[in-house]
């Protein structure tokens, strides 16, 4: 085993480099259960100093990764060191849109507006996007493609729509049978599309077409 000091934060918390915030939190919780001072699991396993070191490292790892800004800085550092592959890091989620004009930089709680603003501009500029929009029948993977093009993590949509992330994933992967009902599918889809500031009506029709056929 690599000594703990030489492991990166992802290895310390035993999570993958594109873990979600939820996963980071629960990994930290599990780790604390194992390594914390009163824990029965590691009782007498470590010396006092070792335990202290581990706990310090864990906290450092957690605090760095839970904050998006410090996390991306840390990721960049890992990529530079060649520890992480850029592909694995940005292949899926966490490709954040970069706002073109950020007027309200100083103010907080504008994140939602700025994202949707950049979504609109990104939507228009992409010609692949327009191809997607012109499709006759839309599948889950088309939706996913669209989302990836705009660089929106699924978590954001889940947060906005208040729909659980695995249900959204079901929609994107065309696993309708796992959804509670057709009605739910429609309404989830509607709010999903709504996130992108598109007219949900035709989208839902084009998506549902396939299932009805």
């Amino acid at each position: 085993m690599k000594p703990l000091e030489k492991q990166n934060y992802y290895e310390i918390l035993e999570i993958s480099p594109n873990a979600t915030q939820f996963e980071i939190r629960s990994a930290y919780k599990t780790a604390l259960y194992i390594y914390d001072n009163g824990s029965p699991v590691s009782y007498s396993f470590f010396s006092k100093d070792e335990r202290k070191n581990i706990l310090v490292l864990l906290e450092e790892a957690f605090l760095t990764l839970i904050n998006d800004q410090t996390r991306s800085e840390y990721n960049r550092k890992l990529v530079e060191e060649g520890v992480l592959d850029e592909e694995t890091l940005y292949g899926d989620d966490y490709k954040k849109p970069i706002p073109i004009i950020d007027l309200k930089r100083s103010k907080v709680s504008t994140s939602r507006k700025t994202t949707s603003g950049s979504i609109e501009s990104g939507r228009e500029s992409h010609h692949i996007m327009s191809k997607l929009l012109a499709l006759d029948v839309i599948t889950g993977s088309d939706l996913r493609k669209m989302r990836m093009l705009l660089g929106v993590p699924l978590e954001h949509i889940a947060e906005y729509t208040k729909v659980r992330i695995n249900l959204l994933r079901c929609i994107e992967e065309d696993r309708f049978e796992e959804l509670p009902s057709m009605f739910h599918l429609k309404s989830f889809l509607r709010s999903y599309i709504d996130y992108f500031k598109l007219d949900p009506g035709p989208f839902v029709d084009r998506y549902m077409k396939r299932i009805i056929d």
Partner: protein
Amino acid sequence: MQHIWPIGGGKGGSGKSFLVSNLGVWLAMQGKKTLMVDVDLGAANLHTLVNIPYPEKCLSDFINKKVDTLDETIIETSTDNLYLISGANNNLDASNLVYSQKIRVLRAITKLPYEYILLDVGAGTSFNTIDFYMISDYGVFVSTPEPTSIENVYRLIRSVYFRKIRQMLNQQDFKSIIEQAGVLCKESSIDYLSAIPFLIKDREPETGKIIELMLQNIQYRLVLNQHRKRDNPNLGFLMCKMVKKYLGIKMEFVGNIHFDERIHDAVRKKVSFISRYPYTQAASDIRELCNKMLLISSQDSIAGDEHVQVHHL
């Protein structure tokens, strides 16, 4: 194929003999020819648990050469297919067995024609306890979900690991390696144990390789006994994870045994718990973990690693 499972746990009262007797009964009920050996030399009581208060033969007879073969000390129990070598009438100084005699006993045990041989190893981490773990790669460790017991079981695992390495080297080499490891890190440190195989490999690549292979073959199991409702059911799993991560020893968690007041009754009445109370949670826990262990060992023997269990004897 013969399977030898040493069952111990460091701390007294964690349920080692109880587990041995019930595993023995269950294995025998499955039609496996099973032998239980009480190697808790100084404080034997396995015979009591299977209700043979006055065993006429015991392990001491073999140690003292009253009989020629270990075979002659075996007694039948009331359960079919289940046999016992008792330690009831051991000499009062039996727990201080000398090394050559111990080797003689161990060698004789491996030659007995039984499918499953369960060794009831006593508490503590003296040579007379941990040496019985040397005979097999499939040691079973019993603990309760209490810090005292967990502490002792970790200690036992480390001692066994340490001893396994030690017996592969001559005394001089071992001493100098220990000194070297002591310079690198403190003895209580977690890196201390894992550093030793590397140091050996550095010095003598060939011996290092053999030791590495030997450590890879180890397949320990952990059982948590007296598990109450409010204990975390994942505790054992996490413990195994720790052992694997920091000591590099393969250890599988095979299950919790639920705490049950009736176990006390069964022991008091000197009947086997699993046949007296077969429909309790604890009994089904025992059956389940036994089946799991059978599955693991059958997978191992199918995998066909032809490593001789008693390489060094």
